[in-house]
């Protein structure tokens, strides 16, 4: 486990919720740019993601980190209006129509944000139209879909078909407890991820190498 030099980044990585809020507030008060504070939070989240990947952290720590981040961002957001946030690219994500399970999706969203992506989270029970609208608007080259209920995998296939039929050239990554190679092939997705850190790795691969072009894993 790496030790982070910045106190705020370190507090996130160590899941010290009260210290995080205190540091965010004092830094804002002392005139530090809100975006610089966001950067530190992201460093902390990246470390949390790495600790999850290495097996030092578990889902309980990721859920806690997500809650701490949510509280910290609630303090920061009023100060971020108009600020030009730099990001590595946009990703649209949602739990597919018929399914309302969002634990896995929320963890993926958190780690992707931590990794510096602009994540457009459409929430749960998302129909094809909403995915298509968000993809057109954001020009995101990657869409993530989450599904837990196996009976909703058929709906996922239809959503992917509609996205392709709308002429959108995006890569599709899917995830969920019962998602594997067979499901990926059936719904004609480009990638599947077994866990949140795999999802981030695949996103990194797409954004650094084959930006915007859908190809098979």
């Amino acid at each position, binding site marked *: 486990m790496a030790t982070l030099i910045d106190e705020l980044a370190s507090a996130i990585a160590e*899941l010290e*919720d009260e210290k995080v809020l205190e540091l965010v507030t004092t830094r804002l008060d002392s005139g530090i740019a809100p975006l610089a504070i966001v950067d530190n939070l992201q460093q902390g989240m990246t470390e949390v993601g790495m600790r999850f990947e290495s*097996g030092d*952290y*578990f*889902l*309980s*720590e990721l*859920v*806690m980190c*997500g*809650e701490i981040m949510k509280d910290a961002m609630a303090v920061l957001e009023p100060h971020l209006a108009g600020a030009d946030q730099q990001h590595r690219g946009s990703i649209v994500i949602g739990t597919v129509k*018929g399914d*309302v399970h969002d*634990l896995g999706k929320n963890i993926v969203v958190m780690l992707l944000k931590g990794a510096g992506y602009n994540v457009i989270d459409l929430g749960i029970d998302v129909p094809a139209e909403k995915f298509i609208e968000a993809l057109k608007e954001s020009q995101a080259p990657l869409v993530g879909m989450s599904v837990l*209920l*196996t*009976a*909703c*995998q*058929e709906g996922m296939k239809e959503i992917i078909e509609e996205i392709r039929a709308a002429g959108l050239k995006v890569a599709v990554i899917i995830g969920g*407890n*019962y*998602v*594997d190679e*067979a*499901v990926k*092939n*059936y719904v004609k997705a480009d990638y599947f991820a077994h866990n949140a850190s795999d999802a981030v790795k695949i996103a990194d691969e797409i954004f650094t190498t084959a930006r915007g072009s859908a190809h098979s894993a």
Partner: protein
Amino acid sequence: MGKEELFQERFNRYTTALKGGKPDKVPIRLQLSEFMAAYAGITLQDIYYDLDKNIAAVDKILADFDMDVIGGTPSLWWAGQHDAVGAKYLKFAGRELEENRQFQYVEDEYMLADDYDAFIADPTKWILESYLPRIHEEFAEPGSYRANLALIKGTAAMMMSTGASQQAGAHWAKDFGMPLSIAGFSKAPFDTLGDTLRGLKGIMMDLRKRPDKVLAATEVLVAHNIFYGMATSGGDTSLPAFMPLHRGSYPFLNPKQWDTFYWPSLKAVIEGMWKLGKQTLFYAEGNWTPYLEKIAELPDHSIVFHVDQTDMAKAKAVLGGRFCLSGNVPNTLLAYGKPGEVKEYVKRLLNDYAADGAFIIDSAGVMQADVKAENIAALIEAAREFGTY
């Protein structure tokens, strides 16, 4: 063969395996759930709301497939019963959802962090006075005319659905020679707290912010969950109580959290029921591989260990000989595979893990409408072909 004789033969086959023995054939127990509705051509709305159709879906399955036990109806509960009390935490097809959508549980922090002390002091009082009014529209003001009526409606509906289930069990035994796979239901105390009371985010924050309260609450739930398992089985000890296990699956909790908060109270519930002669169907949803050694601490045969994503080879190595195992035909294979592939999987599974008995064949997870009927037929055909001792 007469139905009574057939019932006895299947019952013996199943219970012999449960106790760790080697029956004449590997018993077939399939958690078919909502697939039964799809197969019978009945909408989920009808399955959730119409008790007769819920039972008719099982009849259709029993007429067409050769199994040894049946787990019950496709719907876990009767939606009408929840409507009668205005349950806010469930959504059903035909009401909030389209007619063929699976029911949904709406997770929330129905118990607040501030409720711990009252809950620990007297859980029943807290549930009646604080929790039930929060999650039921009709019971929002306890003591009011409307709330009193809700209690009566809720009780009447509970009796109706329980009565229908009992009659269905007797009907399947008499007309199809088919025993039930389970009797009763219970949960891990941490899941009771984490699933329905505090919710996932709540409980995960509690582990850090108020660990002592979590521990005290799970301890309070031990006696309740033992009682619940025995009460819902009407005292039956011939069949296991169904225990779906959730938050203890890897990698929800870190090893220290698992050892401290999840395992001791779960172990106490299982041992408590076992002392009363009641076995537990340890329905380990997800992956439990890192915890097998701990699970092996349980008394011999006190559980049947169900394998979903747990490593079957390791489960056999660690638990085999002392506990019956069940599982684990992958749900994606049953949905997207070909009958030949299903047969091949079953053949290998039985060859590798069922040779010395104490093995029940089942799907890995609870099945849904996506499973193909021809794959269920292939599973059963292969289980009979390669699962006869």
